[in-house]
């Protein structure tokens, strides 16, 4: 059954099983996302897509909230913009995001969002944790210093490849992406070397070894293509 709602004052209609994010995209209203990736389930973790809904005293993630009849959604208020800027600042301060020397420079979703939300400087202490770079895999590499723990690689490996090689260990700020039981990637016995995790990564944390900055394109759309092909036998080429 169709639902009618307004986003930023614009009246739109959507299917009842659609999320606010999907409805907004159909109406070409941009909402910034980071942990969302087409083809993967949503976890609502990055909080970039939070929107204001009239009548709710809580901000709601557009990626996991379904549309409702008569919903009045605001996606771009001053308050939301300020929060998004702060979240990006927190990410830049958390690990070592030095764009100038990063392989993903120019193809990085974190970098793009930083520009989009108008983050000019970071007001928080840079934590600069000393994290490792895992180059044990013959084709791929993982630089934990550039990881934002969005878990897109975890979900891609589990939901699309089905190997569940990747998961998260520890908790809080000490969380870390691991392969199997925290072994070097190259020694993982479950990894199929399919590279879907690398496609899913929004930053330079997962990369193809030996690729130059210009070649480092993530190909994230491939995952949505693959999901549609596998599950619905639809090839959107």
């Amino acid at each position, binding site marked *: 059954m169709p639902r009618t709602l307004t986003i930023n004052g614009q009246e739109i209609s959507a299917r009842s099983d659609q999320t606010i994010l999907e409805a907004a995209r159909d109406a070409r209203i941009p909402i910034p996302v980071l942990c969302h990736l087409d083809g993967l389930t949503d976890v609502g973790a990055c909080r970039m897509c939070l929107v204001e809904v009239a009548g709710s005293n809580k901000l709601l993630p557009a990626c996991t909230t379904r549309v409702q009849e008569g919903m009045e959604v605001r996606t771009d208020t001053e308050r939301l913009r300020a929060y998004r800027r702060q979240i990006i600042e927190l990410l830049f301060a958390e690990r070592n995001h030095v764009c100038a020397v990063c392989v993903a420079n120019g193809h990085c979703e974190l970098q793009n969002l930083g520009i989009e939300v108008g983050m000019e400087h970071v007001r928080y202490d840079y934590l600069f944790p000393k994290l490792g770079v895992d180059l044990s895999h013959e084709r791929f590499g993982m630089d934990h210093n550039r990881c934002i723990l969005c878990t897109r690689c975890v979900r891609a490996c*589990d939901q699309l490849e089905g*190997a569940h090689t*990747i*998961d998260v260990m*520890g908790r809080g700020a000490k969380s870390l992406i*691991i392969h*199997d*039981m925290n072994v070097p990637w190259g020694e993982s016995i479950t990894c199929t070397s399919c590279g879907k995790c690398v496609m899913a990564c929004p930053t330079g944390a997962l990369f193809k070894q030996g690729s130059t900055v210009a070649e480092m394109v993530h190909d994230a759309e491939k995952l949505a293509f693959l999901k549609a092909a596998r599950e619905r036998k639809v090839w959107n080429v």
Partner: protein
Amino acid sequence: MISTITKTMTSTPTAPGRPTGNGAVAATPSDRLAGDKRYKIIEATMRRYGYQGHGLIEALHSAQEAFGYLDDFTLKHISRTLHLPPSKVFGVATFYNLFTLKPQGAHTCVVCLGTACYIKGAREVLAAIEGEYDVKAGGTTRDSQLSLLTARCFGSCALAPVITFDGETIGKVTPTAVAQQIAQRLAAVQQAR
């Protein structure tokens, strides 16, 4: 690829243990499982949950209790028996504070850092123990006799500040007397042996 996985992930090598350089016989995984009765306890826990994934945390509790910590071998064994990805088992084992991946000392002293204890001087108590035994919270003394841990509240706030020694609650401790209280108990256990 599949053959590699089967080879490395199943625990059914039938060959007897190979002799190692120093003449000892290295146990194969199946030897280790058969030879250590503690695995039977873990097995019983997993059976109780029908060898299903939702029994993971209970299985880890059993293993932690039986061995005092969770080593790679045990985690792999649980992962295989419950048919769970190794990364998931490792992720769960490292999420919860009560699971440890390293062996603990022969005795454990836990200092409560809950609010009531904290405002009644638990930090000074902790510092006193750290100083006396030259060990940091979370660590074990060099002679492996004592592990010093901290907790978030035992719910014995009326006795604040509280520590436990091998599970025994000791209430209303002071920075000046606490080291001696621990020393007495350590001596008592050693004498009993």
